[in-house]
């Protein structure tokens, strides 16, 4: 009997980075445990990470490259798969130019640097991600405001924490796992929670502000109104380090009285006052904010206002506030990505680049412009592409258009674990490795001051880690890469003097943290100050000051539409067991959450004759889907909250039920609904109506 090997690595079942001990016997992982020595997860793990064995060894997992032939999918070799893709790409480059190639990823399996390098060396500016409305938008808006991304400093022990549109123990663990929040909270930090739903956190909170979905930017202005009127700001910081305080102050006092903010946000003005006082008067205080703030037209301006709050209260780069962590001296994602290799001519051709200049700065395109370029061939057509670890048919706005676009795209390849509804529309399927099958310097793109050693535990079938797929395909396209993924890691590590072997032993590298780095050298912005008045946006002819814009599809902006669709749909409810569209085929996880859930207030449900666990039609101007009702008196009766990411792997036809419960059939991606400088599409807030499914309509298919 072979002995049990215990291998230390790093999870990636979500954006995670939690430390893991994988137990291996006879070449197979049979058990996953949390690694108590992890400096960011301390031995805790979530259900998604623990269930990786059921993903890696799932009977439906595709373990060989495939191509779609006349009789359906058939197994091919890696050589044939990569040659087919590179031949097609070369033909497209020759005939239409490299800009007609689309390189897409989803939320990523920690291969962002490979993805960008591949796109840049391919010569296409059209790299597509969810970044415009998820995380990268936060970073983009931070860069123009204060030069770097300010992260909640839990290690510095905040005395007041504002959880703004986030459930840190369930999801969104980019810089910190929920356990860091929890430890700080348990040490006695005051807690302010901003959430349209009553939750675990609202029960713990000193103050809960039940905000109307999509109005966070107005609420942030309300905070500022109190802080300015009551002079709760750090006068020294404001005088020396904020650019544009006076015009901003004027706008806040002139346009965002607490009465108006209450009217917009539905939050009692006295609660706003109390929350603003608590945040401003408690030192240090930190804001931990989540993705719903980014998925509307106010994407950029919410981030800018939130950073303004951190700055004006003296909490920016202060211990226990929102800080700029210092990374270890490894080579960066940006250096790896070779952005300089993309010519200025090509950069000019980036789809949507002229319109969404802030988004374009992050080097990606927003999904809407990709689908339009395919469907309308304007300003030029996209002809072929590759999608790695993404299921846009389920996870991006206005799914019906995406279906039409993917159908029309001449040729595309996907790299994934399973035959998803998106993969079914492809021409080539490349079997990707899970995090158990990866060697990588993990989390190099994050802003928490660590890089982590993710080491390969097993190999399964013919699956390749995504990094190797980009590297080998890149070489076939004549690009400059390292011989192996491991050589690339050595290159990243070189400035530290640590080898890959030593890195694996250490488990992680950490930068040396320093606070108050702006003292002396200022912030990395054009004025060297925190720019509440953005000189960058001003230069682009945009409003240089942050503001709140009414959601284009709301009862306020569209009372006409609200007659037919009277409820605000808060789409994209997260669960702790699924990661976006992933995991629906994992037995341990699906048992916990067998059905897609729509939350409805009991009074609202009663009006429509809906009872707990009834199937419910949710309808918007774009279409209708069904989810199962869960009554929740912790939401506003005017709001309906629905889970996202649903398809049905157990339905074996090629659609896999992509249009049954997919909330993004309902979401809107019209240009009017998008953030004007970032290009964020609205995945969150729209109008809907509900009705009980009639008998015979309950079944999933």
């Amino acid at each position: 009997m072979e002995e049990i090997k215990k291998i230390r690595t790093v999870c990636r079942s979500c954006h995670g980075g939690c430390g893991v001990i994988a137990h291996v016997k006879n070449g197979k992982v049979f058990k996953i445990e949390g690694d108590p020595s992890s400096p960011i997860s301390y031995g805790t793990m979530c259900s998604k990470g623990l269930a990786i064995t059921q993903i890696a060894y799932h009977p439906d997992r595709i373990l060989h490259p495939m191509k779609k032939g006349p009789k359906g999918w058939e197994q091919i070799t890696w050589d044939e798969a990569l040659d087919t893709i590179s031949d097609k790409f070369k033909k497209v480059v020759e005939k239409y130019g490299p800009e007609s190639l689309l390189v897409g990823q989803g939320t990523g399996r920690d291969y962002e640097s490979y993805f960008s390098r591949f796109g840049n060396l391919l010569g296409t500016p059209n790299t597509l991600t969810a970044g415009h409305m998820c995380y990268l938008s936060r970073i983009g808006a931070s860069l123009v405001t204060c030069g770097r991304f300010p992260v909640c400093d839990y290690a510095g022990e905040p005395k007041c924490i504002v959880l703004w549109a986030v459930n840190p123990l369930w999801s969104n663990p980019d810089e910190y796992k929920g356990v860091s929040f929890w430890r700080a909270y348990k040490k006695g930090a005051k807690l302010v929670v901003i959430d349209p739903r009553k939750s675990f956190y609202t029960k713990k909170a000193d103050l809960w502000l039940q905000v109307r979905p999509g109005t966070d930017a107005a609420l942030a202005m309300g905070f500022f109104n109190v802080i300015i009127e009551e002079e709760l700001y750090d006068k020294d910081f404001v005088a020396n380090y904020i650019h544009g305080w006076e015009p901003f102050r004027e706008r806040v006092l002139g346009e965002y009285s607490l009465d108006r903010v209450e009217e917009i946000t539905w939050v009692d003005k006295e609660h706003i006052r109390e929350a603003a006082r608590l945040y401003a008067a408690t030192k240090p205080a930190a804001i931990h904010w989540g993705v719903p703030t980014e998925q509307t037209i106010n994407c950029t301006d919410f981030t800018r206002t939130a950073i303004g709050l951190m700055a004006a209260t003296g909490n920016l780069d202060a211990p226990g506030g929102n800080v700029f962590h210092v990374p270890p001296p490894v080579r960066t994602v940006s250096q790896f990505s070779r952005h300089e290799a993309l010519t200025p001519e090509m950069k000019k051709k980036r789809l949507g680049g002229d319109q969404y200049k802030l988004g374009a700065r992050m080097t990606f395109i927003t999904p809407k412009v990709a689908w339009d370029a395919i469907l309308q061939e304007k300003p030029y057509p996209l002809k072929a592409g590759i999608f790695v670890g993404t299921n846009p048919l389920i996870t991006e706005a206005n799914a019906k258009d995406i279906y039409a676009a993917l159908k029309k795209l001449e040729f595309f390849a996907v790299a994934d674990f399973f035959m998803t509804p998106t993969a079914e529309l492809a021409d080539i399927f490349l079997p990707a490795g899970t995090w158990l099958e990866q060697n990588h310097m993990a989390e190099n793109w994050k802003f928490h001051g660590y890089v982590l050693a993710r080491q390969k535990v097993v190999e399964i079938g013919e699956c390749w880690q995504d990094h190797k797929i980009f590297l080998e395909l890149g070489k076939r396209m004549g690009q400059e890469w390292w011989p192996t993924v491991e050589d690339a890691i050595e290159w990243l590590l070189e400035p530290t003097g640590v080898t890959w072997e030593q890195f694996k032993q250490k488990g992680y590298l950490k930068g040396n943290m320093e606070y108050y780095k702006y003292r002396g050298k200022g912030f990395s912005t054009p004025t060297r100050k925190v720019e509440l008045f953005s000189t960058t946006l001003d230069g682009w002819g945009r409003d240089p000051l942050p503001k709140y814009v009414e959601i284009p599809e709301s009862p306020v902006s569209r009372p006409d539409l609200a007659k037919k669709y009277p409820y605000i749909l808060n789409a994209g409810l997260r669960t702790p067991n699924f990661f976006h569209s992933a995991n629906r085929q994992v037995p341990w996880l699906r048992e916990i959450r067998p059905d897609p859930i729509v939350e409805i207030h009991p009074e609202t449900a009663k009006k429509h004759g809906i009872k707990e666990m009834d199937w419910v039609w949710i309808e918007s101007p774009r279409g209708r889907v069904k989810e199962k009702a869960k009554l929740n008196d912790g939401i506003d009766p005017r709001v309906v909250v629905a889970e996202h990411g649903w398809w049905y792997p157990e339905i074996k036809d090629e659609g896999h039920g992509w249009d049954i419960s997919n909330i993004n059939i309902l979401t809107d991606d019209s240009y009017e609904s998008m953030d004007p400088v970032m290009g964020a599409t609205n995945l969150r807030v729209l109008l809907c109506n509900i009705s009980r499914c009639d008998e015979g309509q309950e079944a999933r298919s």
Partner: protein
Amino acid sequence: MKNFSLTILKEDCCGCHSCEVACKQEHNLGVGPRLIRVIEKSPLFIPVYCRHCAKPPCKDACPVDAISRNNGIVLINEEICIGCRECVTACPFGAMQFDDSRETAVKCDLCMERIKEGNAPACSLICPTGCIIWGTTETLLDRAGIK
């Protein structure tokens, strides 16, 4: 060996269900039996788990004496179990489970093998809020911050 027990500080359960998956993995269980389970009643989370009762109704209900209690841990001997489900009905907490594939009742064993080696039960180890506490009566009160 002293008496061991496990308890969950309900108000700190955040509803992540990690304990459920950790338990299934530790006990090689598929879909069906859930030795620990969190019921969601927004915004409340209600953990359902074995209390290892001093006077276990499951033990009293068992017609073949397959259930015993030692060191505070209530165990079922699956070799003796005849699969009659009397214990499942008797348990006031809904903690006693039935495994269709093995056709026996199954239950929490407090990860006895792990405890013997000085390790925390699987559910307790991974809990992000530390709301699953275990130990002897003395250490339990200590960990709950009650003592």
